[in-house]
């Protein structure tokens, strides 16, 4: 194979990142293995919370993993990897330094004499098309131009490994598009000195457009789901069948295949064999309805829905997951199929939808659990903290928070519970007092 011929530059070996608190043990990354060779352009792709940014920080030495090691050119990495650099999602430019000073700062840290710093900074700024803006402050520039400074600064230190942390996601569509083109051109023509590029992204099309290899990650716990090697020549045409096949393949890897009802619905806190509670995605019921409506009339291909409606992959996956959990749809090979209940839900009017939703949602173990807690309480009400506290035994704080919020929102939509934000009390609606 040709991969074997290229020298290995970086090896991630069995890395895990575990956060321990008094109550729970949260695994952010689990047994990650990854290899980067010279000439590679690899994309780390996955939903937010899958630990892809954490992995990037471990690879660059900004963070130390709980287990496993990073081998850089045959040596174990300890501390910052001085041969690597990062282009940040939010640019991370120093607002009080001019464009030129920002680039020079990276060189000053490497003790380059002043005149060489200036020369190299000016040269790089010219190369990324920012000649004439040397004395501007970052706040005077557009997002796209700011990120160009980010690229110039990263390249100034002549890194062997260029790491990109969602570099285009804070930009508007056009700037992102043109900057992607610029990056690809610089990389393909060897105008930047780096030997390999590692890009973190949650944008599937971006990954397929740029990378030669895509590592698809899944969350809870963060792990590698699939590695896909792309056999596409540049420039790549997003409309070409080959391109679309890769898109489908990735969506399939991300959305999975609908499993048995009991697995999809998950368990409730405190149940025997706990730890199998599904995280209900944080989406509103109205959005689910709109999503299903579109899916039933237009396209079955998840990737096409995302593309046509203009929502990003992450939102699409979340909506798909929610539909699966509720039993409104099933997924197989990247295609979504509406179930009869789902069809009924889509065709109903507002009030009927609430009824159907209520019928479905009370069947979810986690909802059953919340409702039975409410019924058992003397005044048919509970402080939010009680639900939150129980969930915090299973999830990290922010996830428990979001989950509680979703439970309340869904419960409100179904008119099963009411909630008063002033005293943070969850009430049972009168008609749901008896099961």
């Amino acid at each position, binding site marked *: 194979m040709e991969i074997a011929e290229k020298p290995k530059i970086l090896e991630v070996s069995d890395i895990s990142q575990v956060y321990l608190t008094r109550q729970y043990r949260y695994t952010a990354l689990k047994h990650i293995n990854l290899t980067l060779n010279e000439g590679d352009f690899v994309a780390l792709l996955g939903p937010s919370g899958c630990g892809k940014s954490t992995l990037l920080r471990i690879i660059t030495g*900004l*963070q130390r993993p709980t287990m496993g090691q990073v081998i850089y050119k045959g040596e174990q990495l300890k*501390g*910052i990897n001085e041969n690597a650099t990062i282009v*940040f999602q939010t640019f991370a430019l120093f607002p*009080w330094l001019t464009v030129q000073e920002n680039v020079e700062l990276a060189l000053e*840290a490497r003790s380059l004499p002043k005149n060489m710093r200036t020369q190299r900074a000016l040269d790089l700024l010219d190369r990324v098309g920012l000649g004439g803006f040397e004395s501007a402050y970052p*706040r005077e520039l557009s997002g796209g131009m700011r990120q160009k400074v980010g690229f110039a*600064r990263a390249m100034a*230190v002549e890194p062997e490994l260029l790491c990109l942390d969602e570099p285009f996601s804070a930009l508007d569509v056009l700037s992102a598009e043109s900057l992607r083109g610029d990056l690809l051109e610089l990389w393909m023509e060897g105008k930047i000195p780096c030997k390999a590029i590692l890009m973190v992204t949650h944008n599937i099309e971006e990954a397929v457009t740029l990378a030669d290899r895509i590592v698809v990650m899944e969350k809870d716990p963060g792990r590698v789901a699939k590695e896909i090697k792309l056999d596409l020549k540049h420039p790549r045409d997003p409309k070409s069948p080959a391109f679309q096949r890769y898109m489908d393949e990735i969506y399939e890897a991300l959305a999975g295949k609908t499993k048995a009802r009991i697995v999809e619905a998950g368990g409730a806190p405190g149940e025997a064999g706990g730890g199998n509670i599904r995280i209900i995605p944080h989406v509103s019921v109205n959005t689910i309805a709109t999503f299903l409506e579109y899916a039933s009339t237009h396209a079955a291909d998840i990737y096409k829905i995302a593309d046509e409606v203009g929502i990003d992959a992450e939102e699409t996956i979340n909506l798909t997951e929610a539909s699966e959990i509720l039993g409104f749809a099933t997924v197989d090979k990247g295609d979504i199929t509406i179930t009869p209940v789902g069809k009924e839900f889509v065709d109903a009017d507002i009030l009927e939808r609430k009824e159907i939703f209520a019928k479905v949602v009370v069947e979810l173990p986690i909802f059953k659990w919340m409702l039975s807690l409410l019924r058992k309480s003397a005044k048919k009400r509970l402080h939010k903290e009680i639900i939150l506290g129980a969930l915090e035994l299973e999830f990290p704080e922010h996830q428990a928070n979001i989950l509680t919020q979703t439970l309340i929102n869904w419960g409100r939509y179904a008119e099963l519970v009411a909630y008063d934000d002033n005293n943070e009390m969850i009430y049972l609606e009168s008609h749901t007092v008896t099961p």
Partner: protein
Amino acid sequence: MKRTKGHPFEKWANWIVLLLVAVILFALVKLAYYTPVAAKKAPVSLALHYIPYYAWRSIIRMFLAYVLSIVFSLIYGYAAARSKVAEKIMLPILDVLQSVPILSFLPVIVLSLTAFIPVGVAVEIASVLLIFTSQAWNLTFSWYQSMTTIPKELREASKIFTLNSWLQFKKLELPFGFVSLIWNSIMSWAGGWFFLIAAEIFTVGQKQFQLVGLGSYLQEAASQGNLVALFTGVGVLIVIIILLDQFIWRPLLAWAQKFNLEMVSSNDNEATSWFYPVLRQSSFILKFEKNILTPVVGVLDKFFNKMASGKKVQPIVEEDTKLNLKTYIVIGSVFLLFLLFGAQRMVAYLSHISLHNYLRILESAGATLLRVFVSLAISLLWTIPVGVLIGSNKRAATVLQPLVQIAASVPATALFPILVFYLLSIPFGLNIAAIVLMVLGTQWYLLFNVIAGVVTIPQDLRYTASLMRLKKWNYWKTLILPALFPFIITGAITASGGAWNASVIAEYVSFHGKNYSTVGLGSLIAESTGNGDYAMLLASTLTMIIIVTLINRFGWRKLYAIAKEKYKME
């Protein structure tokens, strides 16, 4: 300025720290027995032509204390922000330090050193330290807060580009915290002026120490009933404050504009200074910058860079190794043992005080508490309407804003001798004077916060309110007061702290060679200092610390949490 963070550790860390502070105070009180025999009293002449010289001496003192405050703040804030363990101890200490004027004890240590240094110098150092205690804490808090709020990406960027610690300080930390440091420096100087009199005439044991300066001049003038000298002195002080504002702080603020973190350039709230452009164009300044400032800074820069570059860059997340844990446990137990020993000795010492005296302390605490509340109420009563007027009416703002700014810059204590002069003869005179001083010292915090709050009320809410034709009271009840609530609380926290601080000065006055006092914790502290009754001094100071800490913890913090949660405009 005050932080609210509900980490469980903090709950008991605070009480440990309280005990620690108490034990340290106890140790200091024991040291007070070693004060020099001869009191040092520099004669102060009331002749007007001495004023410039005296003012100069005071400014130098203030400046030295300020430099000390900055150095202290940078180091302390940096250490607290860097280490999670240090943070848990260092922040509560800071909290106590800034709520109570406990370090009036500090000169005691210095004065006990008179065996090695001349009395004159020791007194001078003691005075600078006293001013320091009124300047440092808010600076430290501000620097700590800047250190902990630096955006994560900027931190990561400086790590990945391997900036050494000096470069990080120069290019990231200092610029990021600079604007806040300047604003707090202005507040610190105001605090320093406020305590100037107390810092130039102070009592240790039964001995009074006096230094030549503007503060002692004012006190002397009031004491002798020399109104011409008194008013001239106050006038000179006001002029100094205005000059400093116009020629130092405003230009600095205008220059610091470039460190604004906001990525969008806006013209609102920009600090303006007429003097800054003048400074920029002056050829003298340019020459100074080119020939002196730049080379000197360059040399310093090289030096620090060399010092810092030796160290290896570490990853951001450092995990505590087992060895560290052991060290912590050992240090922690030694510390606890020392603490318990000190506490035991202190309790033994305090048990000598009679029950009668403890009742006196309670009574005094009640009186001062009442005064603090009355002064807060009075301040609220006038600052809310005036603040709303200034904040929502452009024309009123242009007239009133500058007046308010000048008025606020006059340290209330400078006016206090005048107040005492007029009020002492009437019944409850000192009582009234004390409350007036507290109001004078606290109202500005409230006013500025109210103005800041009014500005944040969105225009569309105002429109909606007027479209709904809300009646006057309804308008205030549904819009203005809820919107102002968080700001009023923030202001009141600082204001009540200031009022407690002021009580030591306000409740016990030496005038015409006689001592006047009114019932209160402040006067009890001042009186026991004067009588050399150290046990009483310790007991009443501890009482004040405990009361203020309790009020902060169970009153203000709770209110602040509510304010932040419910009434935030977002």
